[in-house]
Every structure is written in structure tokens, then in C-alpha cells.
């Protein structure tokens, strides 16, 4: 079975490594890549690392990218423009942890790109304190 892929970006490698552990636990089958921090271990986002992460899980069904702050978006957009195959790659405005969690569960059920994006977006208004 093929799936929509997930890419998680952050300024911190520790953040994306932790998110990866969470996601792999709930859904090990969906292709997942991460990029976080700079080569020298400092905080930041690296356009070339992001490009490689997307390429490593690229699927014509789609790639959903979740990201954290400021330059993560700039570098992700630039990475997408640099890719030769960049159809169906989408940045999603959703909370990093909850959004990627919802996205990978949806993708694991075989959902299409739009449904995976919608699942992540739902987390923007999800009430974590509801009974």
C-alpha cells in the first residue's frame, strides 16, 4: 500500500527526533522524514537538509510538511522550488506535534493528500481540555 508522506521540520534536531519517535510508535508504515537544526548542531533550518528530507520520502500521492518558526517556512518554500519533482508537496499551517500526529494517522489509513492536510489543520482548533 502506498501512502501520503510526512516531513517534520524544526529549528531543533531534538524536537524533530522526539516527534519522529512519537509518530513511529503510532504509525510505523507511513514514510516519514525529519530535518532539524544546522549541520554543526546549532539551532536553525537548513534548506539543503530540508530538500534531502523531502526527496527521501517523495511520493506522487503527496508530501505533507509541518514546520515550526520563522525561517522554517522560508527554507521549506525554497527547498520545494529547488526540487525537480515538486508536485503535491504542501506546507501545512498546524501545530507541529498534534498536527503531525493527526496527519500520520490519517495518512496511515490510506487517506488522500487533501484529507491528510485537513486532519492536521483540525488540530489548530482542537480543544485539549474538553471532557
Amino acid at each position, binding site marked *: 500500500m502506498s501512502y501520503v508522506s510526512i516531513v517534520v521540520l524544526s529549528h531543533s534536531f531534538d524536537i524533530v527526533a522526539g516527534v519522529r519517535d512519537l509518530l513511529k510508535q503510532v504509525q510505523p508504515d507511513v514514510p516519514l522524514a525529519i530535518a532539524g537544526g544546522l549541520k554543526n548542531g546549532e*539551532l*536553525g*533550518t537548513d*534548506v*539543503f537538509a530540508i530538500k534531502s528530507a523531502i526527496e527521501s520520502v517523495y511520493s506522487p500521492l503527496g508530501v505533507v510538511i509541518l514546520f515550526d518558526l520563522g*525561517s522554517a517556512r*522560508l*527554507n521549506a518554500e*525554497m527547498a520545494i522550488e529547488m526540487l525537480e519533482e515538486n508536485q503535491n508537496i504542501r506546507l501545512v499551517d498546524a501545530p507541529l506535534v498534534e498536527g503531525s500526529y493527526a496527519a500520520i494517522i490519517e495518512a496511515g489509513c490510506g487517506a488522500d493528500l487533501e484529507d491528510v492536510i485537513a486532519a492536521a489543520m483540525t488540530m489548530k482548533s482542537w480543544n485539549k481540555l474538553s471532557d
Partner: protein
Amino acid sequence: MVLGVDEAKRWLTRVNDEIHHNKGYLTNLDQAIGDGDHGINMARGFNEVQKKLTVSTYADLGGLCKDIGMTLLSKVGGASGPLYGTVFLKMSGVLKGCETASIDELTAALDAGLKGIEERGKAKPGDKTMIDVWQPFIQYLQKNGESIDWDKVIILVKEKTEFTKEMEAKKGRAAYLGKRSIGHIDPGAASSNILLTELAYVFKGEVTS
């Protein structure tokens, strides 16, 4: 005067010197309203630029700008990497095949760079970003053509940089501070001030190799 490869190298060498000279200042500005690494990032990026300039020869300004753009993109980090990287990549498109650039050609290249910043950063004038320095600078060049007074350019970009202090940030991490960002100069405006001021010095003929 026209800008050739040697002049462009002198410009960027001066920028590297000034970025290093102001590394602490840029970082302090960024600690106030950003993530506190602008000076470090810019110094690292321009250090690499300097290394490239020392060992490389360029047949045209397009080739030089492309090399600088890719270097900044890969070495600067933060939002400034893609933004300044985009400036030089856009300039390289306009200056492709040009061994020298007239003021009009250079203005067109810098204007393409500004448009690149606007598209990449999705910011507009008044958002407290480097655009608030670049836009009035380009407007002055476009208006004055061959009769540019470079001393006026230096004053203009300094004033516009200072003026970002009064603005409320709408983009980048400073935007999370809202009105609390007022009272601090935008770090990207401050580094753009260095870039554009040093270009003016090269045209004034005060910088020799």
C-alpha cells in the same frame, strides 16, 4: 562609474569586514526582538563569501552573484540565509553575461533582489523588516539614475534603518512580541544598512583594493 567584478569583490570584502566589526551589535539587536543569532549567522555566511572571493575568478557579475547567493543560502542559517541568498540569486539572473554593470543595470538587478525579498518573506513596507531599507534605497536609485549622490544614499539608508525602531514588527519572530517590538531597530534592516552603505562607498571611490 560602472560596477565590474573587481568592484563587486571590493564591495563584498568591505561588507564582510563591517559585518565582523558589527557582529556583537547585530546579535544584540536580534537578542532584543529575535532569536539572538543574526550577527553570528551573518559573520559565518560572509566569512564563507570572503573565502570564495579569494580563490575564485569570475567571467561575469552573474556568475559572481550566483556563487555568493548559493554560499549565503547554505551558510547563513536563520531567515537571513534564504533572504540574502535570494537577493544575490535574483541579481545573478539580471547580470548574467555582464562583465560590468551600469548604474541602470545595477539598479535593475538590485530591484530584482528586493522583489525576491518581498516574495520570499511575504512582507511589505512598514512591517519592520529589511524591506524598509531596501525599498527607499531602490526608489532613490531609480529616481536619480546617473546623478546619484552617494553621500545622500548613505544618509538615507541609515535614516531608514533607524526608523524601523518606531515600527511594530509584523514578520519573523519579532512579530510574536507585537507592540513590544517597538523601540528596537530591526536586525535585518541593520545588516542591509551595512550591505548598501558599503556599496555606496565603492561608488564613491573611497574603497580601493
